[in-house]
């Protein structure tokens, strides 16, 4: 499958909220309090108020469910979500981001599907996100 870079996303997270053992598994919420994103076609900051709802499944992998709001450097708001899998045993951390915006300039993000490669760095998670062509 062909793809091209869309953006690199860096997230700043606050202290984990541990919900604990729920019927689906152990649920941890990673509040997102900021961050930044940069690509050829869009760049800006991550607004506080989102988070990643992370459930540890019975097979040991983590199921990810993120919702955040991006604000571009020219003031457009973009709602971003992803689901994904983080399997530390196999060093696999991949996501399927989706975007929604009302901004005509960035309406192209409403019409694309994407794949992210995630990585946990000392200063927080980083996602390299590519548009599926």
């Amino acid at each position, binding site marked *: *499958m062909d*793809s091209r870079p869309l953006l690199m996303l860096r997230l700043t997270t606050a202290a984990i909220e541990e919900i604990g053992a729920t019927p689906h598994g152990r649920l941890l919420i990673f509040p997102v309090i900021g961050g930044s994103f940069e690509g050829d076609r869009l760049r800006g900051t991550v607004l506080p108020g989102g988070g990643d709802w992370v459930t540890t*499944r019975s*097979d040991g*992998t983590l199921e990810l469910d993120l919702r955040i709001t991006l604000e571009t450097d020219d003031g457009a708001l973009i709602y971003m979500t992803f*689901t*994904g*899998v983080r*399997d530390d045993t*196999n060093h*696999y951390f*991949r*996501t*399927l981001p*989706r975007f929604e915006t009302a901004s005509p300039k960035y*309406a192209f993000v*409403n*019409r*694309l*599907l994407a*794949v992210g*490669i995630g990585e946990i760095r000392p200063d927080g998670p980083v996602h390299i996100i*590519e548009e*599926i062509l």
Partner: protein
Amino acid sequence: MNTRLLMTLDVDVATPQEIGAVPYGTRRVAPITGGNFVGPRLRGIVLPGGSADWLLLRADGVLELDLRVTLRTDDGALISMKSFGLRHGPPEVMAALARGETVDPARYYFRTTPRFETAHPTYAFLNRLVAVASGDRRTKGPIYTIHEVL
């Protein structure tokens, strides 16, 4: 992005159920009556019972796809597949597809992002991956070429 072929999935679609204008757009349900899939690591058939595609034509002309199918491998394992997708293109191409004509899939965007669930140990690797697919809308139903994201 590195990928490798997971399978080709060919589904048979029955007459769509036209739900009509709903708050998010125009809703149509396309029941899936069967099909088959083949790939290097798994092959089998599509079961008709719980399989359909819930289509939503949005105000911006983009068709959202929400496919759920049950796959049965040739050695008897059941696999649940769900995929969200998008389909859009130039108006004349979308009109030709709506008329049931076969169109070169390079002329429109038809991509989906499958996820899988299974309890069968042989296929447990599917629980741990995300996938991307390109679709080719044929008269009797779409053909999806599904790649594992490595």
